[in-house]
């Protein structure tokens, strides 16, 4: 394939390295250093997609981040990615890309029928049309729109690429490596400041790569290269290309996306695809430059109509000409630069200048080169469907209202320049209230809000000399404040051509009898007529106009359309632009991949995994694990072909008949020390703590200040001023913060220290009628009889040479103990228990059996202490001390908490003793009552009672106290179940609590 639009020489591409790539199935070639866009244009391909609404043919409009059209689906290393701008995607060997938003193909697109039916697609079309009839939306409209529209398809496969996050601090972050970025970075770096210079393109230098200027007797490009090489050598400077700073957040935190591997056929081993940088900068220099503004005329979206700066970039950077017969349509001097570049390369452009009689150095140069210039001329409409083939042009009156006779001239591209829009996004995101600058008809940053300074074109300054002066100064002053160094840099001599005043005219009137679409927003197909309709229909606020017409709402966020949209609204409304105001700029400045945002926190890395010291034993013994917060806990130990239900039943039954052992390491543990420790407990828990003797444990319930139960657990007095508190697994972190809150802020006079020891102790619960016998074998030197170690007793001991703590506490309702050893000895302890327990038929049990045991004995847990229940509801009111005050006590006498029919915990048994009751089901009086059927309560936890061999559930039931013996219905619309049940006591096993004390 011959690259017919590639110049023989020139450009910054590597002509020694030819690359082959595919677009829409067809093979082309380009060079290393090309973008997909420049390579396609070199091959004469201008039709790359279809527009979003009318499916009109789409070509290239820009050459970088501002591109509204050339969005493709990329295929790279067996992966696919949507929403890739061809103007940003660097070419690599074997690259494949396809057009989006066209079906079945870009050349014959069925959606283009919208274009010919456009009478149906005015502003607000989607709101107006697809709303009725309602059923049509699901059956007809949506499937059709989904098939025909959309800017690409996201892959449904797991993304195997790696994305990284990085945190960095610096003195100055500089966003953009054009003249202002380079000058300020250089000055600051010379002062010893830590500098990060970020450039979104692969090449540094910004506008210096394409403009005909001279700095310090070097071309702009050479000067940029020399500065960059010097910066790269400095240890205090980080220079990053392919890196877009896309968000300016609070306290000078900026986020940058670095495309590490997207330009390569395949990500290198141990490299990420992209890296997200969180940068905290002391000072931020915004040197993001400006984006050329389009001129608006008929069919100005035809492929071949392009920003003049883009045409110049394709020429100077890539050695590619966008057309052989170009028309340059401009209202300022920038268009001339493009025309001159064409002319220098042997191509004859025609310039149409809207101005009457402008005079400047650059215009003189164009005249001297023999370029044909037509003053007071405009393009009325582009002609050609898939590519510009000619232009209707006309003379325009001095007041810009009247068009002269329309002439048609042949051309194959129209390069437009409507002056420049400063890129103020980052400044605006920082909170800077932008101001309107009349001379350039654009917004520029106002007073700095955070530590941001905007320089050069981004600040509305378009001369090189002024830009460089300001930027050297800013870099020097800001770095001096930080480093106290003051290295003066001599200012280089600058040669540039002076420009003349630009013309504020930007929108060509329609000729009589013609109804051309004149587009403002190229990606979302918003035309001048759409804005007119929106205003006619009463939309006034620019934010409303934006949403109603979708102006500036596409993936390019209106980089080329926003100002023209504002100007149009201001003209129709007869207001000045600042009175219309602009819509809010929000991050991200460019689309960021979800992968980059998520980083490494995917799959099992999405949260930490905590394992008990006995984890490997559980694994070896066929444990099936369950997530308990960040912990992995054995849910059951599978024997043979058992399922969850069978295994947990076996394990629970073994606890009731023999002895079981459960890993309870995950319980929160807090070590409490100090002379006022008892006083703290007394204020935190609802029951009394001042008289707990050393060597005794007590069960306690703590409330929030609003009276709701926060957590429960046992606390043991280890010695005079030393307590060991346990919390539920889920609340461990909250309880610690809660204690710290009261100790640090409310009662700082209490002399107490609290510290989490959850990970310091491994815990095993030994439960069942034979547990004491097992304990006797584990601790032969201790008296563990009912007298020696009574219920709620505590002793310190020695487990075959290992320090151990023994607590006689029970969660299962059986005679039970909990043994703690230091974590490193956890596995040893566990294996000893299993070994010594063989003769008593010991079996490990998991969380499922643990739940069964606690449910059937009516012991409350997280599903009852759900942040909505008080002590009374969960039958814990017996633990409320009348004699002392404690956290949350004052709330308990509020009306709702003392009402006589207050909800209470009850037991629920199905009448048929067979049907399991789904958790979360509602309890109702009458199963056949009309909806809404009054809910009396809900099922909080369900199990299969191993004691009674039938289903049993706990429920929180209104007036539960007086409901024992009542027959109600459990309803689960979710599972489509209605189950007749009887309400029983929540204590379904050993209601008198004899076993635990035996």
């Amino acid at each position: 394939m011959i690259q017919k639009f590639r110049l023989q020489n020139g450009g910054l591409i590597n002509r020694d390295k030819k690359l082959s790539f595919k677009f829409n199935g067809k093979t082309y070639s380009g060079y290393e250093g090309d973008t997909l866009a420049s390579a396609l244009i070199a091959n004469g391909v201008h039709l790359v997609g279809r527009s979003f609404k009318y499916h009109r043919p789409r070509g290239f409009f820009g050459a970088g981040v501002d591109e509204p059209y050339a969005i493709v689906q990329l295929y790279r290393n067996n992966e696919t990615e949507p929403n890739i701008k061809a103007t940003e995607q660097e070419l690599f060997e074997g690259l494949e890309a396809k057009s989006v938003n066209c079906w079945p193909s870009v050349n014959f697109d069925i959606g283009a029928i919208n274009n010919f039916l456009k009478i149906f697609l005015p502003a607000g079309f989607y709101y107006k049309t697809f709303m009725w009839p309602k059923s049509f939306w699901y059956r007809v409209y949506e499937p059709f729109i989904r098939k025909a529209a959309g800017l690409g398809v996201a892959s449904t496969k797991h993304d195997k690429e790696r994305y990284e996050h990085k945190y960095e601090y610096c003195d100055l972050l500089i966003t953009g490596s054009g003249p202002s970025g380079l000058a300020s970075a250089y000055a600051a770096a010379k002062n010893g400041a830590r500098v990060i210079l970020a450039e979104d393109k692969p090449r540094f230098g910004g506008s210096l790569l394409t403009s005909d200027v001279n700095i310090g007797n070097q071309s702009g490009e050479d000067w940029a290269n020399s500065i960059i090489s010097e910066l790269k050598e400095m240890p205090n400077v980080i220079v990053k290309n392919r890196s877009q700073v896309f968000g300016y957040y609070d306290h000078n935190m900026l986020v940058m996306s670095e495309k590490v591997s997207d330009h390569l056929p395949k990500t290198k081993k141990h490299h990420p695809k992209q890296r997200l940088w969180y940068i905290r900068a002391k000072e931020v220099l915004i040197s993001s430059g400006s984006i050329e503004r389009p001129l608006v005329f008929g069919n100005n979206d035809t492929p071949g109509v392009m920003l003049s700066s883009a045409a110049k970039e394709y020429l100077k950077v890539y050695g590619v000409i966008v057309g052989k017969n170009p028309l340059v349509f401009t209202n300022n001097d920038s268009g001339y630069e493009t025309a001159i570049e064409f002319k220098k390369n042997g191509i004859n452009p025609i310039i149409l200048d809207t101005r009457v009689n402008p005079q400047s150095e650059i215009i003189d140069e164009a005249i001297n080169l023999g370029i044909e210039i037509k003053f007071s001329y405009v393009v009325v409409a582009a002609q050609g469907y898939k590519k510009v083939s000619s232009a209707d042009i006309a003379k325009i009156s001095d007041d810009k209202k009247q068009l002269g006779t329309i002439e048609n001239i042949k051309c194959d591209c129209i390069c437009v320049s409507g002056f420049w829009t400063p890129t103020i996004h980052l400044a605006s995101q920082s909170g800077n209230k932008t101001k309107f600058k009349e001379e350039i008809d654009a917004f520029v940053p106002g007073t700095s809000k955070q530590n941001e300074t905007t320089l050069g074109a981004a600040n509305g300054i378009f001369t090189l000399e002024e830009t460089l002066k300001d930027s050297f100064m800013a870099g020097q002053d800001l770095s001096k404040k930080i480093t106290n160094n003051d290295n003066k840099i001599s200012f280089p001599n600058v040669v540039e051509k002076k420009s003349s005043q630009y013309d504020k005219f930007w929108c060509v009137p329609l000729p009589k009898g013609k109804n051309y679409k004149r587009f403002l927003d190229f990606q979302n197909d918003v035309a001048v007529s759409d804005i007119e309709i929106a205003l006619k229909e009463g939309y006034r606020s620019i934010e409303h106009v934006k949403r109603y017409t979708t102006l500036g709402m596409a993936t390019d966020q209106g980089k080329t359309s926003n100002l023209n949209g504002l100007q149009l609204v201001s003209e129709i409304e007869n207001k000045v632009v600042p009175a219309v105001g602009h819509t809010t700029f929000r991050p991200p400045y460019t689309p960021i991949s979800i992968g980059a945002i998520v980083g490494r926190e995917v799959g099992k890395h999405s949260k930490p995994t905590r394992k008990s010291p006995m984890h490997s034993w559980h694994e070896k013994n066929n444990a099936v694990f369950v997530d308990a917060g960040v912990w992995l806990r054995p849910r059951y130990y599978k024997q043979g072909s058992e399922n969850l239900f069978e295994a947990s039943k076996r394990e629970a039954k073994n606890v009731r008949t023999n002895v079981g052992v459960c890993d309870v390491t995950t319980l929160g543990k807090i070590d409490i020390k100090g002379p006022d420790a008892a006083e703290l407990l007394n204020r935190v828990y609802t029951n009394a703590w001042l008289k707990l003797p050393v060597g005794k444990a007590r069960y306690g319930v703590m409330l929030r200040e609003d009276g709701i139960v926060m957590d429960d657990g046992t606390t043991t007095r280890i010695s005079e001023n030393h307590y060991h508190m346990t919390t539920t697994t889920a609340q461990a972190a909250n309880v610690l913060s809660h204690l710290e809150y009261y100790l640090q802020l409310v009662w700082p006079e209490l002399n107490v220290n609290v510290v989490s020891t959850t990970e310091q102790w491994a815990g095993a619960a030994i439960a069942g009628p034979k547990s004491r016998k097992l304990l006797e074998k584990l601790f032969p030197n201790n008296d563990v009889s009912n007298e020696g170690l009574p219920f709620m007793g505590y002793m310190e001991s020695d487990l075959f040479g290992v320090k151990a703590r023994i607590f006689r506490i029970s969660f299962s309702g059986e005679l039970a103990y909990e043994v703690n050893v230091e974590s490193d000895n956890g596995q040893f302890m566990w294996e000893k228990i299993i070994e010594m327990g063989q003769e008593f038929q010991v079996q490990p049990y998991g969380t499922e059996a643990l739940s069964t045991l606690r449910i059937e004995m009516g012991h409350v847990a997280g599903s009852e202490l759900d942040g909505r229940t008080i002590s009374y509801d969960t039958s814990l009111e017996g633990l409320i001390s009348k004699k002392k005050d404690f956290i949350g006590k004052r709330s308990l006498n509020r009306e709702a908490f003392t009402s006589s029919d207050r909800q209470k915990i009850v037991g629920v048994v199905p009448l048929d003793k067979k049907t399991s009751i789904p958790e979360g089901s509602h309890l109702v009086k009458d199963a056949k009552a009309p909806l809404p059927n009054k809910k009396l309560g809900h099922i909080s936890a369900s199990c299969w009672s191993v004691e009674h061999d039938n289903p049993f559930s706990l429920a929180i039931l209104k007036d539960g106290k007086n409901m024992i013996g009542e027959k109600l219905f459990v309803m689960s619309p979710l599972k489509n179940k209605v189950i007749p049940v009887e309400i029983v006591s929540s204590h379904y096993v050993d209601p008198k609590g004899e076993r635990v004390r035996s």
Partner: protein
Amino acid sequence: MLHIKCPHCGMRSQNEFSYGGDASIKRPKLNKEISNEEWDNFVYNRKSLRGKHLELWQHLSGCRQWIKVERDTATHEIFNTYRADEEIS
């Protein structure tokens, strides 16, 4: 992301802290007889201020100290931070 100066540790990122609400709220003394209204004001009623606000944060993934932060709720500007026991004039 905010940058909060812990009076004990120095400048740290917001993700090391957890928010603890209005710092001007004083818990009524234990055992003190108070009206429902006074109690409700302590437990529930908070102003949703726009502007300068004295609030509590805990340096959770750091020194675990509760600190007071004077912050503008609209602009997120932080004017000052204080230790829990510091009296604020």
